[in-house]
């Protein structure tokens, strides 16, 4: 195999100057919430460690994760990370296609056995032996299993790979299945969102490439540094929430004033993501800032929690339009009615008994 290539070698070959390289290292440290002391550590790691190859596969998905990824705010980070990745295999980003691409796929697996990171975008549908998603003439699930077998670790990009996303919405006809329910024997990091924020994606991958391990994960296996808090915890409209000032209808005066979108079904209080801090499109804005509630895209089953525009979830088992309140009030009303009738009969019976006794 000859001389081992380091990250630094790759970057220099891509025309990145040493100065830019150092800038990149401090930027990465800042993005990951590490102190300045880590900058030389990152630089040192990148200069000396052999480059970690990445294979990026696509299952049942819409490619929004890739779209997000290549729009990372800092062009430097994007260039660097992208140059490190596209080198190996990514069927939507790489130049090669068809048999050449499949050959590159095999070659990478053989060459870096046990050393590469497998990044999965989308998920395998399991019904009909996986025939609902065919890549390279084979069900995607086979490709996934094949690539996962010799992978060091797996990144589940987006809601699709992490949780199943809309293709897994009830009744899930193709049985689209998140990666961690198919691959059971590899460490998996989930980076959910539809798509995940670009800076979150580059941040996670840079961390893994430089430190050779996962960042700290939360209980659901997501990087805690980006998914540790809810949108609601850092939302700039939160003072209006605490004040009890809400948008009551789209385009009412409160909407113009930028009040809290809670009553319009904002899922910020139940969604763990970094949108309210990192924001989107180079930090320009995020959904709530442009007047629309969060739909909870980085949460498990967000597609099955009723309308995006209702605060309370519709519970389908109780009919199409049943919230907890409707169900509860119906039950309480029925019981209250029964109690009233029971009380009336009781009073009658008692009067009857009294006249009998008299």
């Amino acid at each position, binding site marked *: 195999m000859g001389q081992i290539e380091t990250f630094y070698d790759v970057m220099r070959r891509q025309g990145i100057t040493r100065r830019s390289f150092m800038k990149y290292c401090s930027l990465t440290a800042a993005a990951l919430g590490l102190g300045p002391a880590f900058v030389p550590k990152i630089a040192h790691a990148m200069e000396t460690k052999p480059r970690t190859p990445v294979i990026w596969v696509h299952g049942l998905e819409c490619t929004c994760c890739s779209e997000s990824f290549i729009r990372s705010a800092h062009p430097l980070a994007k260039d660097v990370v992208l140059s490190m990745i596209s080198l190996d295999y990514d069927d939507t980003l790489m130049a090669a296609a068809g048999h050449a691409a499949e050959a590159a796929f095999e070659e990478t697996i053989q060459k870096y056995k046990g050393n590469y990171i497998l990044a999965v975008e989308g998920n395998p549908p399991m019904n009909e032996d996986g025939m609902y998603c065919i890549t390279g003439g084979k069900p995607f699930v086979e490709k996934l299993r094949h690539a996962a077998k010799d992978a060091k670790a797996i990144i589940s990009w987006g809601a699709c790979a992490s949780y199943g996303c809309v293709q897994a919405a009830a009744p899930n006809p193709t049985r689209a299945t998140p990666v961690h329910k198919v691959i059971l024997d590899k460490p998996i990091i989930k980076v959910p969102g539809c798509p995940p924020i670009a800076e979150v994606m580059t941040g996670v991958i840079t961390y893994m490439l430089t430190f050779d391990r996962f960042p700290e994960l*939360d209980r659901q296996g997501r990087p*805690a540094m980006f998914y540790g808090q809810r949108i609601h915890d850092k939302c700039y409209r939160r003072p209006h929430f605490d004040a*009890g000032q809400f948008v009551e209808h789209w385009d009412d005066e409160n909407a113009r004033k930028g009040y809290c979108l809670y009553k319009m079904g904002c899922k910020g209080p*139940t969604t763990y993501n970094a949108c309210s801090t990192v924001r989107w499109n180079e930090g320009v804005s995020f959904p709530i800032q442009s007047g629309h509630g969060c739909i909870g895209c980085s949460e*498990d089953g967000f597609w099955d929690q009723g309308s995006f525009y209702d605060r309370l979830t519709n519970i389908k088992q109780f009919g199409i339009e049943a919230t*907890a309140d409707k*169900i509860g009030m119906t*039950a309480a009303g029925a019981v209250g009615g029964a109690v009233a009738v029971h009380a009336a009969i*009781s009073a009658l019976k008692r009067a009857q008994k009294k006249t009998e006794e008299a």
Partner: protein
Amino acid sequence: MSDKIFHPARESHEIFKASRLTGDATLEDLDSIRKRTSVYVYEAPVRLWHWINAACITVLIVTGYFIGRPLPSMQIAEAYDQFVMGYIRFAHFAAAQVLTVGFFGRIYWAFMGNHHAKQMFYIPLFNRRFWHELIFELRWYFFLEREPKKYVGHNPLAQIAMFFFMTLGLTFMLITGWALYAEGAGQGSLPDMAMGWVLGLVQNSQRLHTLHHLGMWAIVVFMIIHIYAAIREDIMSRQSMVSTMISGHRTFKDDRVE
């Protein structure tokens, strides 16, 4: 009126000593005086817990409802100076803390207190008599029995309701409630370390909210039935009810044995 008092129907030695009443007691009053037995059932900690618990749950239901479905927007002051939703949530969390401490205190008392302090926490599944009495109690509620039985503690129907709606129901509300609270307190906080695993289990916090919210309605249903039954039995049964939860004494209105 007053001459009636001085000419009792019974001889004075027949009148119980304690019932030698003064004031406005009438002949009918004296006639209807009878001996009543009473048992001390609910010790002070149980009674204290009952009313604190009832108050907390009432606050939790009102505030919880407004958390799920907030009041109309108000414009009292600048947002930084106005705290409507904040106070509603504060009241919810404050009542929740009292409820939690109270519930643990009540469990402690189930071990330390008398036999009746334990009744709420189990169903005597293998006691034939319990099931017979349960059927009897159901018949009483369906107007198929003329007269109810006498109970020192809870009747079987009440015991089942207490067990499912309070022992299990409150446990469910405590678990889901603290799991929601842990989200606000943040990862690594004490509530998170104690109850954060629940969110890991339920996965989506929106689901957790829905479960917590449905739990509230179960408790509302219990409250309606419970308060109705307590007042109805107070009037119609052969024993005291509401005052029992105040004084602790169960008084029986008649001396007949079954």
